[in-house]
């Protein structure tokens, strides 16, 4: 018996058949490859717009000098604002109310004069000021003010010809600045690999069993281990393929900056092992195919929303964050982000060990209780 546990050529034959069956069924190809890509495209487009948002800005020029006009032009050139000019004759407050403006920049009457004085004295005295009339309760106005400050700072620097003494750099908890899409793509990779592995293990096997294909296989030299390894390897190959497609689209369409390193492969493999293992357990515990796939759904949906696939876990209340930490997908998400976004090897290793332990337990358990034949007696 010892010599008959694993056969490379049988595993090869199974993988060939699985891959042929896969690409000959177009709906499966769509769900497996195109669906995650569509998610990335849709969410990526929504969030890309936020990243490069162009704001409305009303400017009331009370000075009406070449200098003030130059300033307006400089703001316009920053390309972050669509500028509406407000006539100096009207009252800015009333205008803001009637025209529903949440921010009006007012260039004071003595703007050019103050500028001249400032240039001549060349001291660090009080700067020339602009008045900002804004509605603090309005949504997004702080972002707008922040962007305006940045633009003005740039203009200042150009006019004085000196580098700024102090710059404020946005510091995030991550080492480098990242965009939402760069947070999102690893989450979708983890989720797509999870769903495919779980469904593959539950549905494909249930179907083959029900149709009697497994019964025929049991009359050939194939072993349980051959069968399980074939499934896992096939799922892994598809996971790598589907990840490659997702990454390619993300690079081409959104020019994401995500690191690709060996960790990526490690986490995909652990994702596959964990959820194929879980699928095997569900198949055995639930007996009937329908209840197994219902159980798979019941496990997958909370995992998708609570383990940081679509938004950071830190955004959730404390008790849900605690809950997230017992979900296996959380460690795939965190691990992939540590590997691809922040490139933090220590953090990636920690996640890999956690999900690795989980994968080992469910996979071994799943393999032990899976039977190829109709009988266990």
């Amino acid at each position, binding site marked *: 018996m010892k010599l008959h546990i694993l056969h490379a050529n049988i595993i090869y034959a199974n993988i060939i058949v699985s891959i*042929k*069956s896969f690409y*000959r069924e177009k709906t499966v190809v769509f769900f497996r490859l195109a669906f995650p890509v569509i998610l990335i495209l849709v969410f990526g487009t929504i969030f890309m717009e936020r990243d490069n948002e162009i704001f409305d800005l009303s400017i009331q020029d009370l000075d009406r000098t070449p200098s003030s006009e130059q300033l307006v032009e400089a703001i316009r050139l920053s390309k972050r604002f669509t500028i509406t000019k407000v006539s100096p004759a009207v009252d800015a407050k009333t205008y803001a109310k009637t025209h529903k403006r949440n921010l009006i920049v007012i260039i004071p009457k003595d703007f050019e004069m103050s500028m001249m004085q400032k240039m001549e004295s060349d001291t660090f005295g009080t700067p020339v000021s602009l008045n900002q009339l804004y509605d603090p309760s309005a949504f997004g106005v702080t972002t707008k003010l922040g962007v305006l400050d940045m633009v003005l700072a740039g203009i200042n620097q150009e006019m004085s010809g000196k580098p700024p003494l102090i710059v404020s750099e946005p510091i995030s908890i991550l080492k480098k600045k990242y965009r939402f899409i760069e947070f999102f793509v690893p989450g979708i990779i983890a989720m797509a690999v999870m769903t495919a592995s779980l469904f593959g293990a539950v549905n494909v096997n249930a179907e*083959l069993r029900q149709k*009697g294909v497994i019964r*025929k296989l049991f*009359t050939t030299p194939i072993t349980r281990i051959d069968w399980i390894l074939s499934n896992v390897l096939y799922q892994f190959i598809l996971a790598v393929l589907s990840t490659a497609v997702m990454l390619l689209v993300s690079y081409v369409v959104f020019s994401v900056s995500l690191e690709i390193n060996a960790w990526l492969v490690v986490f995909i493999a652990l994702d596959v092992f964990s959820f194929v293992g879980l699928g095997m357990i569900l198949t055995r515990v639930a007996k009937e195919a329908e209840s197994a796939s219902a159980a798979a759904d019941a496990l997958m949906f909370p995992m998708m929303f609570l383990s940081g696939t679509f938004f950071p876990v830190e955004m959730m209340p404390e008790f849900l964050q605690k809950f997230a930490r017992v979900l296996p997908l959380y460690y795939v998400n965190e691990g992939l982000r540590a590997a691809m976004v922040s490139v933090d090897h220590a953090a990636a290793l920690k996640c890999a060990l956690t999900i690795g332990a989980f994968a080992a337990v469910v996979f071994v358990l799943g393999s032990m209780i899976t039977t190829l034949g*109709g*009988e266990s007696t």
Partner: protein
Amino acid sequence: MTQNPEYAIEVTNLTRRYKGFAAVDDISFTVRKGEVFALLGPNGAGKTTTVEIINTIRKPTSGKVTLLGMDVTQKKYKIIPRIGVLPQGFSTFDRITVKETLQYYSRLFCNPNTDINGLIALVNLQDKVKVQYRNLSGGLKQRLGIAVALVNDPEVVFLDEPTTGLDPRARREVWKVLLGLKKKGKTLFLTTHYMEEAELLADTVAIVAKGKITAMGSPGELIENNANYLVAMLKSVDENVFEIVRNMGLAPAYDSQGHIKVRLTHTEDVRRLLNTVKDSGASFAGLDVRKPNLEEVFLKLTDEPLAQGFVRIKGAE
């Protein structure tokens, strides 16, 4: 009696229970090498259970089974490469073509020398080489299943109901393939519901009912030993005749042509039957008396009325 090299299969006091219910109940038989052996029996008789115990995929509750001299419960991995199996209701991967399917199974047997084209020709699927399994008709699927059972050039081939669900033409096509295998000297172990199939193909037929073998022998012997009665056929359209015969204490039944058939245990019964019907004044066109055929023997041995069998045979055709 064990380990006789002449025997491909030896079954001794085999019993298989499911939760106390004996699906196979203390059966014994042997199959010689090169012999075609058929288990003939109605639904639920225990045929599949018996076959699957012999081909190692189910476990017996008690008894001893050797296949090619090896204990089936001990030597699964030694036995499997030397046998071929067409399971009941054979099915394989939907989107894999005929040729790819054969390549796949031949790889499972690590058998790079399988003559795939030869197998395709054997089951006459040359025109369907590139057709996916899901697009084959039932008869073609079954023929592919037989080819699959042969990829490892097995010494013993098990075929569990190879023609169930096929139309008469498709069934004849399968028989042709099986007769070809028989000619090649393969040991075939066959299960079937159909007497004609057993009669045509088998050297030895074992009739099973309710887990027991009720009769065994060559088709000729079975008729010889169990045809200790006569079958009378009354050609009549008069409905009263049926009642009259039943009132004689006999068990009449209509056959597929609407004639009345009845088993007669004694020669005198023929005269008694004829006189009774004549005396009643009922009209009838004639009386035929003959020895039963295997079909009728089978129905007797499985304890079924003549008519029920005929209805089923007709439905199957």
